[in-house]
């Protein structure tokens, strides 16, 4: 690559194509020995948005409501299946829990899965199940295992070379269990290059992709110019070539181009019309959905937006389950429905796979699953006298709801079923995590036996490369 002498003119003329060339010429390699398979020709999606309901979202109080029992003092806990009434959705005969009406109205554009069965990992720890959901492997593992976003980033690369291919919005690692959550927000053996680009707070997202705080555009440009001039004036050519130096120069160049590029505006939520912004602005999660939408317009590959997992917060309802879910639903209902509508309006829904999921569900009585109960963590009185005990407070792994939209997914479809009486467990079409992952890979055209040889053994996207996509989910 020749270095243009006039850097400003170079930048002015830098188009996405030039940048693509810049990225393509890069011998980015690591110690991986082999991959396999090419991307299949008939792909259904280019982009994935994962809407993560961290903390365990109770299916009977959200997307799979059962018989409603209103709160009364002295009620029997075992009678309570749902703490909200049901409301109709756009699919005939399919109901959601009250508070999710907006999402209900867009269900004609997607599929509800009611039969996700989480793994049995014993005495429950949220972050272990989240690790399992995001990597498809049960922790701990003998090697550092990649997040699904990293696999996708590695296999497909960025959609747009200046937008990092794996963006994680909304999760901070400074909260409780942060270290455990961090353990799966990694590209693992795929190499740091494919790790998550972290935007803990979407309202401050722009700060991640613009010149340092307090630095003007002009100064930023001058700084970069100085850097390049010092390299040329110095001893750059003296020591021959090596990958450390080449990769350093190349990635500094890429970072500069990203920070200068119009794409950076995708991270700037203030550019959004007020009325739209307001619909999304239900908090950090809602704004995360807005950012995800804006990023899809600039070419993003994998984005996760989380309600954020923090022990005993958000969906992690060890008490006051009913009351707190009112708030949680307000946070997610409007933005998610708007996201789907916006994607459809801009014509991007067809090529964007949107998934809503949680590590497991909740139930008032059962911890774990009915035939394999595990150590209880929540005291649940048999007779409820206090509203704080009214809600789904135990961790339930045998029937969880997921939503999928776009990316070739059937529209107005229901997949799987849970029992109508306690235990409200999966009774039809159970779907496990490797099937979920393989279905996502299927939509993207990543072959099911994709693997790398790591420490001389094959390491697959899903354990042993055995998982298969659920083709019934696709139209």
């Amino acid at each position: 690559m020749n270095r243009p002498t006039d850097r400003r003119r170079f930048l002015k003329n830098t188009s996405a194509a030039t940048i693509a060339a810049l990225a393509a010429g890069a011998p980015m390699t690591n110690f991986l020995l082999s991959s396999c398979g090419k991307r299949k020709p008939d792909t259904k999606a280019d982009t994935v948005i994962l809407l993560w309901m961290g903390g365990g979202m109770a299916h009977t109080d959200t997307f799979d409501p059962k018989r409603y029992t209103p709160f009364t003092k002295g009620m029997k806990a075992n009678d309570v299946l749902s703490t909200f009434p049901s409301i109709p959705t756009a699919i005939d005969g399919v109901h959601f829990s009250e508070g999710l009406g907006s999402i209900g109205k867009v269900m004609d554009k997607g599929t509800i899965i009611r039969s996700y069965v989480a793994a049995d990992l014993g005495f429950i720890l949220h972050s272990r199940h989240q690790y399992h959901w995001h990597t498809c492997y049960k922790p701990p593992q003998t090697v550092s295992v990649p997040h699904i976003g990293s696999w996708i980033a590695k296999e497909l690369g960025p959609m747009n070379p200046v937008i990092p291919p794996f963006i994680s919005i909304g999760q901070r690692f400074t909260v409780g269990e942060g270290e455990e959550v961090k353990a799966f927000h990694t590209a693992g053996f795929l190499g740091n290059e494919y790790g998550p680009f972290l935007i803990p707070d979407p309202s401050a997202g722009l700060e991640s992709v613009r010149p340092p705080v307090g630095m003007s555009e002009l100064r930023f440009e001058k700084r970069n110019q100085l850097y390049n001039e010092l390299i040329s004036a110095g001893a750059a050519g003296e020591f021959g070539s090596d990958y450390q130096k080449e990769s350093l120069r190349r990635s500094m160049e890429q970072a500069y181009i990203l920070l200068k590029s119009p794409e950076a505006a995708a991270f700037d939520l203030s550019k959004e019309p007020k009325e739209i912004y307001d619909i999304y602005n239900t908090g950090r999660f809602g704004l995360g959905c807005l950012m995800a939408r804006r990023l899809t317009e600039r070419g993003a590959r994998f984005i996760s937006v989380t309600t954020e997992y923090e022990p005993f917060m958000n969906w992690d309802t060890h008490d006051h389950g009913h009351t707190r879910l009112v708030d949680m639903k307000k946070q997610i209902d409007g933005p998610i429905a708007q996201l789907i509508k916006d994607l459809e309006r801009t014509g991007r829904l067809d090529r964007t796979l949107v998934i809503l999921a949680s590590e497991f569900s909740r139930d008032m009585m059962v911890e774990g699953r009915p035939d394999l109960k595990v150590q209880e963590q929540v005291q649940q009185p048999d007779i409820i006298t206090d509203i704080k005990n009214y809600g789904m407070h135990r961790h339930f792994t045998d029937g969880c709801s997921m939503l999928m939209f776009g990316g070739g997914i059937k529209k107005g479809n229901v997949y799987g079923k849970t029992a109508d009486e306690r235990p409200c467990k999966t009774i039809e079409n159970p779907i496990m995590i490797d099937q979920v992952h393989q279905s996502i890979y299927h939509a993207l055209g990543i072959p099911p036996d994709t693997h790398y040889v790591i420490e001389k053994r094959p390491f697959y996207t899903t354990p042993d490369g055995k998982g298969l996509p659920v083709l019934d989910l696709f139209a």
Partner: protein
Amino acid sequence: MMDEPKYNFRGRKLIAVCISLLLAGLIAVYLIEFTRQPEQVTSTFWLWRFLGRLHPLTVHFPIVLILIAALLEIFTWRAYRSPLRPAIDLLLPAGVITAAFSVVFGLFLSKDGDYGGDALAVHQWTGIATCLLGGTAWWLSRRAQKKSENVSLNSYRTILLFTALGVIIAGHYGASLAHGKDYLTATLPWSSDFDQSASLGAGTDFSDKDTAHLTPKQELELQVKVRAIFAHNCTKCHGPEKVKGDLRLDAKNFVFKGGEKGPIVVPGNIEKSEIFRRITLPAGHKELMPSEGKKLSEGDVAVIRYWIKKGTPWPDGSDNMQIFRLAPLAPRDPSLPPTTADITNPIDRWTNQYFSSNKISWPALVDDRTYLKRISLDITGLLPSPEEFNSFIKDVRPDKRTIRVRELLNKKEDYAAHWLSFWNDLLRNDYTGTGYITGGRFEITDWLYKAIRSNMPYDRLTKELINPTEPSKGFIEGIKWRGVVNASQRTEMQAAQNVSQVFLGLNLKCTSCHNSFISDWKLEDAYAFADIFADSSLEINRCDKPTGKYTHARMLWKELGDIDSNANKKTRMSQLADNIVKPENGRFYRTIVNRVWAQLMGRGLVEPVDVMDNEPWDQDLLDWMATHFQQGGSDLRELIFLIATSKTYQLPSVGMATANDIVTHTYQFKGMVKKRMTGEQFSDAVSKMIEPVYPDSLMMYKPIYDSGYLPSILFRARASFVSNDHFLTALGRPNRETVTSRRETQANLLQALELTNGERLNSILHRGAEKWKRRYGKSDAIVREIYHRALLREPKEKELQVAIGSLGGDPSVDAIQDLFWSVVLLPEFQIIN
């Protein structure tokens, strides 16, 4: 004038014309067929393939004819007109003509089949050149006879001898292509491929001519060879883990049962053996096996062919023979090569021997500036200050480099703060991480720091980790997550995996789930080893499924001693610790010596450093160092001293085009491989020269210094004492959930973004700029000072001009900050040459 020789016969011209036409025709066909379109091996016309296969037949004619012609020429050197002359005059043209045909057929053959690479190119071009040389010799010989010129006669004879030489060279490469590169040399007892036990392999011609019956011993050896080929190439997909096409190749009954389409081998019948058809299909064919990875080598194909021909022997009891390379366990003390006038350091004596046998000459050693930067960063993790640099430059003592290394090693606190990161990676110790939250993990920092600072002998350090006391138990206790974990990841198994990886350079991870496909270790071995750490014997799980079987605690190598499986856990761990550090355990000492070497030299003698069964690029050097390290009291600091003061360490560095090039097995040592500063070194360098990156309040570990300690730096929060954060993660500090023995040093976009606009670096540079503005004021002084500190040199004229230009006459804090930023991101600053 001489008479025409008397071997004229009628029709000579006609024959000449016919031969010429035939040759021209073949060349034309070749040119049209194979240069017009890209090579399409699968569609080669049968006749061209047939012609190609005439090459091995015809090629022996010119070899014999030309060599005999040359031989006779030598006999007749003194008497040109010897009675042998007509014979030579007949042999040479015949040789040249058959050579021409061989060349043409050879060209056809090169397009059929899967020849390639350097050997083919050398063979092809020496073949063609030999043919042309032969022709020239023939022409000169005729000239000499006609004109009787001495000049022609001499040139003819010279050219003929060269032709003969060409025949030998081309022939050798041809044979290499046909029989494998080491076919010839492998029989030599001093060759590395020489295998005394393999009376079959090296000496056997895997051809159809061999009709002899195999002895039982030979059958066994043949079967082991076949099994090794299966294990290396096939069982990943045709084994217990994955049974593609319903076929398994990992045991006798499976091999002969065949797959979903029936048997794969028919004893004695190559044509009907499906396996032979599948491994010999042309490259790119969709039925070719292996379907992933490399095509089987010709040698491997020959072995399978021979095995089928011989009736597919698979004697019972052959399952326990070793397939994979297992490095010898015992220590070795090779005697040092001699010293020379300027080569006295034992490492250099070995390097000198290595260089002379690899025809590498000693380049000039690096200058003081490069050397000081290397040893400072390698020993203390700190960049030298301009004052330290100047005093080093001014020092005129001839042994100042050695003196300086000793001084740096004596800075115990700095040394410990630096090497702490290496050990933390290796022992996966950190201040934060998974497991702590539920009490399932323990930190060993205090113990570790003190062990490094006091230079605890390596054998003792290991013993205290394996058979720990409270402060050092974190390594062996592993990481325990709440809930039920995979059987291969229970803490006892983690201990087995980590002890074998860290201390023995052995990967037991595969073996803790099932019998390994990449080594000869068995599932039971891993459980027997893990049992040492278990309160009660562990039930063997195969791929996380209980088998109902149990084993007894024992060492992986029984030569290393016994474990009393009836004793309690504490006793067993103590026995293990004693056994591991025994001097007889050469592998243990080789592993650490190799790790330290890799740390200083950018690449181990063995790579990857966790796979000590791989071959080192110099076995003697590794063995000698390991043995003398052990005999010298397992002193890590002395090991570093020995390496860092060697001329070998002072060689100019070598750059690698990709990170992969470091670990290739064809690696040849020529000097240190260029390194990039680690995140900690970068952070500490910025802290030392501009402004502390981390305040003391972020220190997760605060060492208590000896009273006599005089800090050589004005900040306390070395990056190894703080928690991992965005900044350090971006610069390659790993999460220490698993053992890490090599860090990623390649830059990437996420890292560049952190450096470009990350808060940590930019705010520190800003704060530093404010101080520099007050302290130095003038642009010129600031530029010179930052160049002195960062690059240990004066700025060049052009650099001075650019930098001062950016600062202006009265530099603003912002401008100074931006200069800092530009300098610390220079490759020259970050790369250790």
